[in-house]
């Protein structure tokens, strides 16, 4: 939806005052009066926007992480500067991301329509393994940065690239974290507008 609804409030036409477009002060100086912000009748409410914004944010973070590692791999192609086995960190983090996002919250709580292949306990175990892989790859990226690049005094950009790929690109931040962040923004906006935050139910 478009939140700005511009209509020309004043026209320099000297017609009869039944003209709906002529306002008080019959001149061009008030032509910005028609701009109303924050008054939008959005046909898509914030509940649906939340998922879209979270998906877009997740996509940005995930693919930025992968492009950072592609850049590092192109810049330092030989094995001595950027050991090729370090890519495993990003691959495991991607796998963890896919695992985490494959399970919806409803299946973990047990109140979805279909139980899925594994049931509620299976969904919880899957999510647990996914989170463990994610945190493990984050820790591994920090270890690689310090153990593989800082201490042996090599050019440190590939290590930093692995760390950023994991820390900001591929972690829990993507999708679930983005959902949490958009929920926080929703709460903040409702608080500012003094409305009842009935959307808290959407949390987790």
């Amino acid at each position, binding site marked *: 939806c478009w939140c700005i609804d511009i209509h020309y409030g004043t026209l320099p036409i000297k017609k009869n005052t039944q003209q709906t477009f002529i306002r008080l002060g019959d001149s061009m100086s008030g032509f910005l009066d028609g701009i109303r912000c924050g008054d939008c009748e959005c046909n898509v409410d914030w509940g649906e926007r939340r998922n*879209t914004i979270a998906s877009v944010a997740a996509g940005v973070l995930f693919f930025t992480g992968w492009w950072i590692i*592609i850049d590092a791999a192109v810049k330092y192609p030989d094995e001595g500067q950027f050991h090729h086995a370090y890519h495993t960190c990003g691959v495991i983090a991607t796998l963890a991301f896919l695992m985490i996002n494959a399970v919806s919250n409803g299946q973990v709580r047990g109140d979805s329509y279909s139980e899925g292949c594994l049931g509620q306990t299976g969904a919880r175990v899957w999510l647990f393994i996914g989170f463990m892989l994610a945190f493990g790859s984050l820790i591994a990226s920090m270890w690689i940065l310090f153990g593989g690049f800082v201490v042996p005094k090599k050019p440190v950009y590939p290590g930093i690239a692995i760390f950023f790929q994991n820390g900001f690109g591929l972690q829990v931040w993507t999708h679930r974290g983005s959902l949490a962040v958009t929920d926080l923004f929703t709460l903040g906006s409702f608080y500012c507008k003094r409305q009842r935050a009935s959307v808290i139910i959407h949390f987790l």
Partner: protein
Amino acid sequence: MAGIKALVGLSFSGAIGLTFLLLSCALEDYQKYWPLFVLIFYVLSPIPIFIARRVSDDTDASSSACRELAYFLTTGIVVSAFGLPIVLAHTTIIKWGACGLVLTGNAVIFLTILGFFIVFGGGDDFSWEQW
């Protein structure tokens, strides 16, 4: 018809975006045609959204997992279209000036594609979105 003016405006901005892309390749200082690979990303970017709209033909569940996946993939393709020139310039295959021109062209083209989706709704079963 949602307006000839919108169509003409969008096609003009599309032409401007492609001009930026071609300038980054064909100017005398640059003369490298590697940035034309972002054309693949331009073509690929609306495809996940089209597929999701065609597959999930129930419009009430508008926040389905398929649409979210489509937004995720589309965002990824857009990020890749910005990432490729930066990686090319960082490894000095193209110059940073050419990279800047490609990024500007990217921004204009993706805004054009977004404008198409907003103005034309991306399909005739979404005609209520044209207002």
